């Protein structure tokens, strides 16, 4: 089906800016297109509109025309397949086969035809399990391949993918792309994929369309040609370029003393005693002036390990301790120090914990507690009992340092993805901890935020912080980590 846009623009209800503006576009049937652009460029909006899921009457205001196969997108919705980012919110059924059958049932396919088509669709994407396999036992990458099977079972003419591999580790992501390639080769369906990671998709696409920050068309053409002629403009707009590995920032000082160490750390989820522990027998040290990367496939226990190190999750056995951290707070008498020595990290009162360790969660929204950026930053220092003068000094400094000053009065939940990430790092820094732990900090970030994050963390490291981060972004690890440990099935591998 041909996608055709003429002067198309769209604005969400209640916004003053157009999300996409004055778009003229022709995509031929069977073309494979990568849609790139910085965060907030309207890529997902365009994709949703082409999928016929953007109701102009309810969602906002539209102008110009957008047709798919010569019709309004909503009229041909059944011929368009759509895969989103989060596999968790796309699976409907408890068994793999039932989930693939779901779409076929909806379209009224006769019962005796459904199951052969389910089997064919599972086969098409190279899905490794049978119909009766429970969806709850699949890994993230397997779930995405199942979602793809469910979409391909409907035999779409056009496949739309909205950052389908953003939640996945590199291996899982590669398998999903392989499945997409197989499915497209077998059916001849067209492809339109939105993704930050350009490199990965280039072998699959024959055209790249780039939107700029304001939602206008920046570049359109063959991949090699685009990246040669528009390299600078693209980089400036925060678009990932093929082979753009970014700067490499190593520690400028030798590693300082050990500030955090874990001994024989093991964690078993409550009620999962029949399964192997999520994390077992971990020995690990974090040193000042050093950045440690924790890598490993999805489900290997990386995030659990980060929570244990952060004193947020009580280990099943073993312990985590903080040493050589000078300013632990007002009650730094020998007796208080002794009692802290005896008390494991996860039993420390929260207001003492935040003086030593700052934790940045994968989803910034999980840690936002107030309605203003300023209050969000002031919260930690206030909990610690700082005077109002000190609080405002700390907050002003952080606002400036993380380029958030112009947003001081904004609601944290309304910020862009990159701004939310910066704010979540800033809130962790507000209590002046010596140790900073981050879980997938580059998750879903565009190139600009990605680069900013590297600069920021490198600066913090050189200022004496010990940094530990969980990541399955190999480029980020290569750019920043002084030391890397890999987890596999809950154990450290060399």
């Amino acid at each position, binding site marked *: 089906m041909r996608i055709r846009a003429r002067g198309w623009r769209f604005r969400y209800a209640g916004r003053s800016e157009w999300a996409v503006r004055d778009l003229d576009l022709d995509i031929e049937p069977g073309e494979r297109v990568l849609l790139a652009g910085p965060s907030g460029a309207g890529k997902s909006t365009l994709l949703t509109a082409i*999928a016929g*899921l953007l109701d102009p009457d309810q969602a906002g205001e539209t102008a110009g025309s957008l047709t798919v196969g010569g019709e309004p997108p909503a009229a041909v*919705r059944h011929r368009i*397949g*759509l895969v*989103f980012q*989060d596999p*968790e*919110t*796309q*699976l*409907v*059924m*408890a*068994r793999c086969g*039932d989930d693939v*059958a*779901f*779409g*076929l*049932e*909806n*379209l*009224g*396919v*006769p*019962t005796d035809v*459904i*199951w052969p088509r*389910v089997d064919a669709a599972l086969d098409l994407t190279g899905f490794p399990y049978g119909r009766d396999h429970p*969806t*709850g036992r699949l890994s993230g990458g397997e779930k995405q391949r199942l*979602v793809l099977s*469910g979409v391909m079972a*409907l035999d779409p003419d056009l496949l739309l993918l909205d950052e389908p591999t953003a939640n996945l580790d590199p291996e899982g992501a590669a398998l999903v792309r392989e499945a997409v390639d197989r499915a497209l080769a077998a059916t001849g369906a067209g492809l339109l994929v939105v993704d930050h990671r350009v490199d990965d998709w280039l072998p699959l696409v024959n055209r790249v369309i780039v939107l700029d920050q304001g939602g206008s068309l920046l570049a359109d053409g063959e991949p090699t040609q685009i990246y040669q002629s528009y390299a600078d403009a693209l980089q400036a707009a925060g678009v990932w370029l093929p082979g753009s590995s970014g700067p490499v920032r190593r520690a400028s000082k030798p590693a300082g003393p050990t500030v955090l160490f874990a001994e024989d750390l093991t964690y078993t989820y409550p009620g999962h005693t029949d399964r192997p522990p999520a994390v077992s027998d971990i020995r690990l040290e974090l040193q000042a002036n050093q950045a440690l990367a924790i890598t490993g496939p999805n489900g290997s226990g990386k995030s659990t390990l980060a*929570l244990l190190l*952060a004193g*947020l*999750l009580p280990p099943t056995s073993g312990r985590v301790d903080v040493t050589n951290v000078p300013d632990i707070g007002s009650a730094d008498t020998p007796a208080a120090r002794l009692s802290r020595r005896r008390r494991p990290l996860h039993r420390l*009162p*929260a*207001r003492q*914990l*935040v003086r030593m*360790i*700052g*934790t940045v*969660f994968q*989803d910034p*929204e*999980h*840690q936002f*507690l107030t309605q203003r950026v300023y209050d969000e930053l002031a*919260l*930690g220092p206030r*909990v*610690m009992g700082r005077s109002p003068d000190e609080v405002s000094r700390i907050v002003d400094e952080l606002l400036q340092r993380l380029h958030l000053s112009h947003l001081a009065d904004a609601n944290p939940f309304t910020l862009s993805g990159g701004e939310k990430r910066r704010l979540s790092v800033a*809130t*962790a820094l507000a*209590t002046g901890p010596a140790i900073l732990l981050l879980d997938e900090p580059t998750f879903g970030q565009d190139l600009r935020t990605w680069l900013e994050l590297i600069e920021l963390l490198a600066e913090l490291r050189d200022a004496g912080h010990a940094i530990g981060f969980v990541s399955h972004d190999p480029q980020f690890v290569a750019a920043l980590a002084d030391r890397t440990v890999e987890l596999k099935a809950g154990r450290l591998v060399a």
Partner: protein
Amino acid sequence: MSMLAEPIVSNPKAPLSRLNPVTKLAMAMLITLPLLVAGDIVTPSIVLGAELLAVAAFGVRWRVFVRRLWLVFLMTGSVFVTSLLLTDQRGGTVLFDLGIIVVTTQSILVSATIAVRLLAIALPGVLAFASTDPTEFADALVQHLRTSPRFTFGALAAFRLLPVLADEWRTLVMARRARGIEAGRSPIRRIRLLSSAVFTLLVCAIRRGIRLATAMESRGFTATATRTLARPQPLRPADGLAILATVALVAGATTVSIALGTWRVILW
């Protein structure tokens, strides 16, 4: 949750387990209604006896049954004790008298009636749900009771998100601790903390729900289309037999009770 995640049925091919989910639902209703009316001990005792015999036909092993339903038994036991202590029906022979606590034959009978009724009413529902796959239940509801597919399968899909929500809750509580916020020993702070976390959880749940609804809609899940069923849940002769047997059981139990002269309508 764990009760739904790990079925207590060890043999899903057992004769009563294989009944149509709608049949099991009807059987539970057929049993519940007369027992809500009957106020004697004979009727529910006969029904409960038959139910306990049926446990095996549901493919439930006795050991598993007792272990997994200990909470139901504990509840029944405590209802019995509470009723024994609080009832004003203290007729009959006094068995023992500790001042405020007086136990008589009548108070034991009254309390036993309440406990047996409770168990006899609860058990069919527990067995019906424990032996039924949620997906097949939804299929059967849509096919035979003509419930709206949009609602039924929507609820089924939402159900799948419950464990995700539980994970999110744990994350939210930890994220608050990571910000230096913790209830500690203060109950007031605990309530404030809980309510703010519940609010965030709701916001997250609504966003998840919208994403799921969009994904379902993109796969053709709309109110208008005529849906087919991938897993038809036929009604077999066995389903009719099971209904007849259930009717015979409750009718028989009531008849026996009337014949013995014990049957009476419950008076609250």
